[in-house]
């Protein structure tokens, strides 16, 4: 075990270095957004404020606009490391404050949806595979296709209409306060968000289980009279988990994308809605911060998925045949 242990640690170490490198690359791209935008950097940063020599000078000083590109980048990076991204061009308030206030909401939504996706997705997928060809299976496959194809903003609107407008079970918009309140407010958004992700996970879980069910080692396990429980956990689940973990990175990306759309649909004051607002208003500093934040979250999540994969499949580290 220790041989494998050291190998795993080395691999993780290597991936961490790669992650840092990637974050740096992404940050460079994110920083360049200021210069991608058409027009003068100053004008972009001014936003709606009037252009006077005083404000121009203030902005040039604040953002070091008269320094060479790489110097600006370096200063920006230093500030970013200390979580200072400048001020929003819309509100002139510090970016990090705005983000901090919205983070809990998005986090709650994300975790809520993630739990739904994993529990329902894996559970239903496994069940459908075990009863392959049966009514449940065909139903699951059918619903999955529709669910995957239905964008979250469409599903959101429909759910909003049915449950909030017509039935009045849930509030129509906002994020509520307190745990119970938040739960109530965020249920419809979380369900909407989970819908597409669940369908995706169901499809891959089902495929993973079907792939394992046909394998020789499962037949051999049955031939030895092993109990159904043992076969399910040690043979089916253990082996099916491997392909499922590999898609979890993609699943997370789609969850994040979905969150943006869902927040807009349900008018939830989260980071996703902030992102869209900033994009519409060309609020570059805000965009920079949110993009970097999302990039780091995704990279870290992918790294975690990679680590889980390493732990779960002994062949990776110790060498395939």
């Amino acid at each position, binding site marked *: 075990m220790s041989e494998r242990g050291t190998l795993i640690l080395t691999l993780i170490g290597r991936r961490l270095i790669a992650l840092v490198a990637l974050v740096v690359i992404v940050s460079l791209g994110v920083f360049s957004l200021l210069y991608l935008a058409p027009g003068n950097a100053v004008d972009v940063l001014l936003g709606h404020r009037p252009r006077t020599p005083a404000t121009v000078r203030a902005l040039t000083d604040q953002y070091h606009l008269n320094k060479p590109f790489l110097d600006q980048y370096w200063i920006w990076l230093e500030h970013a490391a200390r979580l200072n991204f400048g001020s929003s061009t819309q509100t002139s308030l510090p970016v990090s404050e705005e983000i901090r206030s919205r983070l809990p909401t998005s986090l709650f939504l994300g975790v809520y949806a993630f739990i739904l996706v994993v529990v329902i997705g894996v559970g239903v997928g496994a069940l459908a595979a075990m009863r*392959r*060809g049966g009514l449940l299976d065909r139903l699951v496959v059918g619903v999955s296709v529709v669910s995957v194809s239905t964008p979250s903003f469409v599903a959101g609107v429909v759910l909003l209409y049915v449950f909030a407008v017509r039935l009045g079970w849930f509030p129509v918009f906002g994020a509520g306060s307190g745990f119970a309140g938040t739960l109530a407010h965020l249920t419809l958004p979380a369900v909407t968000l989970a819908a597409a992700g669940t369908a995706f996970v169901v499809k891959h879980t089902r495929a993973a289980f079907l792939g394992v069910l*046909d*394998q*020789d*080692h499962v*037949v*051999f*396990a*049955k*031939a*030895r*009279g*092993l*109990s*159904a429980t*043992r076969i399910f956990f*040690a*043979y089916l689940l*253990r*082996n099916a988990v491997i392909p499922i973990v590999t898609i979890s990175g993609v699943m997370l990306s789609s969850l994040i994308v979905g969150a943006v759309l869902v927040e807009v649909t349900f008018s939830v004051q989260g980071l996703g809605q902030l992102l869209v607002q900033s994009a519409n208003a060309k609020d570059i500093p805000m965009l920079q911060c949110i993009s970097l934040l999302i990039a780091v979250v995704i990279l870290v999540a992918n790294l975690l998925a990679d680590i889980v994969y390493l732990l*779960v*499949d*002994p*062949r990776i580290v*110790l*060498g*395939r*045949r």
Partner: protein
Amino acid sequence: MTDTAGNALEVVDLRIDRVREGRLEAIVSGVNLAVARGESVGIVGESGSGKSMTARAITGLLPRGLSASGEIRYRNRNLLDLTERAWRGVRGTEIGLILQDPFTMLNPVLRCASILGESLRTQRRLDRNARRAEVLRRLAEVGIHDPAAADRYPFQLSGGMRQRVGIAAALARDPEILIADEPSTALDVTTQRETLSLIKQIQATRGMGLVLITHDLRVAFAMCDRIYVLYAGTVVEVGKPAELDAEPLHPYTQGLLLSEPPLDHRVATMFSIPGAVPNPDAVTNRCPFVDRCQWATEICSNGPVSLSTIEGDRQSACVRLPAIRAELAAVRRQAVAGAAPRQPDRLTSRLIDVRAVSKEFVHSGRTTHRALDEVSLSVGENECVGLVGESGSGKTTLARLLVGLERASAGTITIDGVDATDWSALGRADLRKLRGSVQIIFQDPYSSLDPMRSIGWTIAEAITTRSRRARNVGQRVADLLSEVGLPQSYAELRPVALSGGMRQRVAIARALATEPRLLVCDEPVSALDVSVQAQILNLIRRLHVDRGLGYLFITHDLSIVRQVSDYLYVMHRGRVVESGPTEQVLDGPKDPYTVDLLKSVPRADQSWLTSSPPGHVASSGALTRKE
């Protein structure tokens, strides 16, 4: 008929059907067999015979879509009536099953100790130490004495080792009967014998019944007390090994016996059964062998055949047996008639000259694997040279080097005067010359041809690649087809419509399009049914005579190499360990590996397994993977 009282297991009128689109397709049509306590019974058949499905049916593990009917009597119960829950009490505890492929049989994410531990009886609640001791004891029973093996994952063990672990796991609950489905087929020839010997020994020690499923009649002869010959879903003959060997009583059994040529001498013409194995569903209402049998008449197609007792324990399903019995024997005598071996004249100019060639493969920057180690070999004009080795010997790598699919790391290769060590460094003229000198036939006929293209297109491509402005391409395609024994109408067909043997012929026709002087044949018949193999071998021999085509015949099968080659090289782990005229090498081997290899060829008698233990080059306890 055998005494029912002494039988542990009886299969009565077993039928297995596949349910497809509303109708039933027969896979096995009415099999009867019996296994007495402690007896070993062999089921011999080629592909499509239904032997594996029979094994699955006996353990209740038929794949989805297949259903079985009939009776499987064990301890006064019909096993086919059992619920899944009841089956769990039977599988492993009463009837054990070993699968064919050791590389997929064991759960890749569990260590061997876990695999064995979970298989042990659950009634006895053992504590950790006791369980560990039991696991090690079981491993020792199958010849694994190194405790470290228990802590390895399956992928860290060689094929032979994995098979042993599988056997130990299958026996963990001490079943009365063990069904071994081709337990050695996926293993190297030398490991095969060890594995089979182990199974036989365990059977004897435990007094278990054994059902051995194999496609190799000689293996069944060596291992079993009684043999059932299965063809296209029907049992065509039953008998004891000695009796079957002395006088087979069914044209198919005889054909099967004769299809594997003898090891000890060269035969004049190699025997093969024309045609290919039919779909069991297509032959349910007649003798399944009727399309390929030279004695078939109308009565053979009258209705389904069944076994009738001929004498003593022997049964045969041949309705014409009394009439043709004498002819059957005559054909056999003729088929095993010997032929004088050719004296290889090694003074002819060397077409291929390989000198001190080495090849190393680098795996993802870390490990290097030395596939060939200073190999020297030569093939003359119009010469038939054999190259024998198991997997990992480097024989396929060498073949690929000769046709430019790989590049040597060291050494030189000269083909027809051209330096062929590095094909990418050659000019067009040289490349053209090389391609016109040497061509290759691959092992797997099922992926040798582009599935989306017709046969004619594939051969035409070979012709036009050779000479852009070729004329009469259609005619030349037709000529090539008839040269390999296929009707010209086949040019329009896609590969999917042809059997393996036919596809291999097409591959040969394609290779001939460049008018090569030498054909490298990399295990050209290993993927074909035994009864069909000689068709291709005879074709290659005939091309040698008609066209003056030399060949380098690569195989692991010593019996075949004796028939087709005059000079022989033996390779082991990337080196040539012995070479010489084929007759000399096979009759008087000098290298211990060659000796070992010869011993491992299945011989149709019981002493094969127990004769002096192999002086193995690699110890059987080795944990390293076989390369």
